[in-house]
């Protein structure tokens, strides 16, 4: 949905632009702008929900500015975030000012979701959401409540999710939800047929991560854009293929036999093992390059010598070596 983002003086992103694909995996050193990209998209989402306003006199020339362009049918619209400081972008303007596409685009921007999963929060019993159609919350804290709602309202999708969870985590034989006396919902995974129930607070972080990612991938009402940080966190390298496939299910639904609009995915990672899995799709990799205090984005597929590099080693090894950039400055 988002075709490109253009940054001027926003945190480390002093002057850089990025064309976005249906799936985007952002790699780079700490502090190289990966999270800033996601924050910009989050800010677009937040400001798009408010009435459009005109700029006040306090804007400083040359201040932070983020410009978004969109794919058809919104290609004629530019959304521009104006910021009063690097930390505060509080104004959204669209061009042309009265674009007839804006109401429809605004609705789509309202369907942006961003995640930074918090494994501590995910293990706590979840209070039922006010809306039974509430999505997974940004830190995943309502995971059990979301699953309970799906079980009741979307039994087919819930059954498909459970089947996928048990395929990816074959040591378990069932996903169980229970309501506590206080009305909250707890979840657990049953170890083998008739085995012990492993409650959420006893599941490993990697298991929780896979569970949450599969929930995102099987959402009956998926977002338009999904941003998520550190998609490899806690997951065994051999299971990263499942992580990649789960997000491909969102970004390329036809490849999974699904007939629904694609979800644009913007994800970050620090895992060379995950990067290895994108050898056949270097166009999906974005390298955040930081030099001094300034950072810029580069598409891996734009490297002229990519074919030669891939003939000599894995993408993950190439990244770690520093050949691709996107590594910390150790000097």
């Amino acid at each position, binding site marked *: 949905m988002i075709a490109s983002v253009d940054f001027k003086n926003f945190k480390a992103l002093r002057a850089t632009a990025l064309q976005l694909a249906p799936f985007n995996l952002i790699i780079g050193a700490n502090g190289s702008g990966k999270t800033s990209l996601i924050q910009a998209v989050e800010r677009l989402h937040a400001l798009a929900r408010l009435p459009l306003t005109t700029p006040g006199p306090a804007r400083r020339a040359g201040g932070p500015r983020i410009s978004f362009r969109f794919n058809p049918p919104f290609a004629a619209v530019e959304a521009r975030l104006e910021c009063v400081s690097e930390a505060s972008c509080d104004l959204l303007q669209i061009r042309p000012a009265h674009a007839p596409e804006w109401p429809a685009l605004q609705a789509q921007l309202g369907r942006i979701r961003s995640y930074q999963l918090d494994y501590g929060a995910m293990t706590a019993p979840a209070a039922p959401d006010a809306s039974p159609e509430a999505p997974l919350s940004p830190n995943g804290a309502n995971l059990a409540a979301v699953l309970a709602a799906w079980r009741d309202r979307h039994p087919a999708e819930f059954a498909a999710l459970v089947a996928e969870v048990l*395929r990816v985590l074959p040591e378990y034989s069932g996903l169980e939800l229970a309501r506590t006396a206080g009305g909250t919902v707890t979840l657990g995974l049953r170890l083998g047929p008739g085995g012990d129930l492993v409650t959420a607070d006893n599941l490993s972080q990697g298991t929780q991560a896979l569970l949450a990612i599969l929930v995102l991938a099987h959402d009956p009402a998926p977002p338009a854009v999904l941003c998520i940080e550190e998609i490899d966190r806690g997951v065994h390298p*051999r299971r990263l*293929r*499942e992580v990649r*496939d789960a997000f*491909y*299910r969102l970004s*390329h639904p*036809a*490849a*999974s036999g699904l007939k629904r609009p694609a979800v644009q995915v913007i994800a970050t990672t620090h895992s060379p*093992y995950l990067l*290895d899995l994108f*050898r*056949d*799709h270097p166009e999906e990799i974005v390298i955040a390059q930081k030099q001094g205090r300034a950072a810029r984005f580069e598409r891996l597929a734009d490297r002229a010598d990519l*074919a030669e590099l*891939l*003939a*000599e*080693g*894995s993408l*993950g*090894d190439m990244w770690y070596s520093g050949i691709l950039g996107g590594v910390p400055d150790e000097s």
Partner: protein
Amino acid sequence: MKVALLSESPADEAVLRELVAAVLGGSPAWSAAGLRARGWPSVVQVLPAVIRHLHFNTDTDTLVVTADADDSVVHTAEHEAPGYFHPQCRLCQLRAVFRRTTRKLPPARGRNRVLRGVGVAVPALEAWLLCGRDATVGESAWIEGQATGRAPYTRAELKWRVYGTDRPSLPYEIRRAVEEIRRHGRDTRRLEHDFPGFGVLARDLREDQANLPGHPT
């Protein structure tokens, strides 16, 4: 005969299990399930350690290892000459690692060394899966493409032809791959002919089986 597999993914392993069983005339005993390498050159990096592990810590008879050729030099009959080694041929490289590693090992667990089953898929495993179904796919077509500078197909195209997408989910990839390779379950001669990189693996396996103590020769 006890066989271990070193492969890139669960899908590759599923295919290799089918092929090994087809060549040997029945499923062997499997050892050390799920040994993995992360593509080339990871496979040659981990191979010595895998061989030593299997030799000292298991009763594995044969280690089967395959790699994708990608754009590397394809193994040809010329490479089979005694003492020949092509440094850009992945099959020659894998065999050399086997030779170097096993030569130094003392006998263990009642055998002198872990036997070798090495193959290279040209340019990728999906080409093997299309053998007999897509007449345009074969090692000779690939070699001709290398000679003329016009590749007859890409890795991505092969994936599309097998899976209908270049982003198959893992379960779908395994299901389709096994469906296709089972066409060769009773007779691997076509695959061996069209893909000599598989033919040498089949030959290794038959020799390994024949050399086992107690096997009728």
